[in-house]
């Protein structure tokens, strides 16, 4: 019982435990999307790009959100489970956002020459090969995250446990 009381954490212990995680989550969130989002908000780059950025910003918000939660829950099984979920979600979102690899870009406003009357300019990119490579890499990432999850679970199982004293 005395051991149990001694194990109870003080406020300082909690701060020591949580503060590095919060710091890591801030840095991780910035790297995994926050920085780019901040850049997009602060600059007028959207008006120069021939793309609707709503899909990209959604991906960045999701990436940043996942990274923050992953860093906050580091050294737990949830960190690895969330990494698995993030990889899988990204695979799906990448396919949806690129319409299966065929992207239509509205570039008419970027043309310097006038178009013939009633004519429409068409610009489509077929990125199925690149998308296929990214899907392959994501699958490898999925496998890696699964291995990390198993490794973590095995480590936890191998840790010696002290059972509470029986009254």
């Amino acid at each position, binding site marked *: 019982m005395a051991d149990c009381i001694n194990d109870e954490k003080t406020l300082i212990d909690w701060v020591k435990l949580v503060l590095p995680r919060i710091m890591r989550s801030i840095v991780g969130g910035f790297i995994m999307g926050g920085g780019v989002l901040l850049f997009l908000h602060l600059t007028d780059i959207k008006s120069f790009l021939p793309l609707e950025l709503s899909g990209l910003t959604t991906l960045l918000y999701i990436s940043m959100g996942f990274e923050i939660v992953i860093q906050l829950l580091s050294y737990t099984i949830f960190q690895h489970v969330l990494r698995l979920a993030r990889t899988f979600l990204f695979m799906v979102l990448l396919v949806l956002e690129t319409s299966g690899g065929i992207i239509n870009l509205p570039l008419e406003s970027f043309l310097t020459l006038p178009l013939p009357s009633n004519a429409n300019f068409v610009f*489509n990119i077929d990125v199925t090969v690149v998308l296929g490579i990214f899907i392959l890499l994501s699958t490898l990432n999925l496998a890696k995250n699964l291995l990390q999850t198993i490794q973590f679970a095995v480590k936890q199982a191998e840790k010696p446990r002290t059972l509470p004293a029986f009254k």
Partner: protein
Amino acid sequence: MRQSIRALSWTITISSLLVFAFFVTAVHSLSQTILTEQGIQLGDHQIGYSDDSMTLSMPISINNTSYFDITQIQLSSTLNNYYGQELSTATQLIETIEMGTNIHIAHNLSLNVPMLLSSATVLLFEDTEFTVDVLVDFKYASALGFQIGLVNMSVPWGAPLYGLNFSGIGSFQFNGTHLVTNCTVEFENHSFLDVNGTVQLTAYNHLDEYLGVGIHEFNVASHSQLDAPFEVALLMEYPFAYSGSGTIKITLDLDFLDYPHNLGSITYG
């Protein structure tokens, strides 16, 4: 297990970065070529006419100023009528345009005018608009597929016999060998081709027996009109069958049509 996870992790990171860098470089390079340097240019189309076919010629120049080769280039064009039905299509293939090189070609789209007018007689008499779609498909850096083009470009179609009206047949004079009459054929030639042809008047008696035929030739240049009255003398091949009354069938025979166009018939006497 730990080492293998680490190796896998590095492999994924490095591969992802390389693929992403390649993708960004390729898209940026081609965007610069197309948008800034006008590397792919579609010139103004020109319409020509020869041997019963109308040819739409579109000059296309591709200047590959980018970092990668352009391969499997397919130029395709389609001519559609007002209702979107396909009238003609043409495809042209170019194997490779290496980086730093350029090509200038004329992409031709042919249309058989007699066949078109046979299938759609309304085009003889009414102005309308055709639409042309021009698409350039190609592979860039052997990995990315691009499709660039202009769709719904309007091409005006001017009717060669716009406002066709046949009038003025009045009195007939029979001189024993010929049946002479005055008439007027009016129309405006809105098309790009000269309209050469004949108006043929065929006379029959009241028993519908063939009497003879008279022909008037006309030549109406592009974007001009025919409205002057003319005299037609019908040569009576069977003058003894002339009874003073009957019908005259009027047909229009145009050089670019395979068949005479029937304008109807009138009675005389």
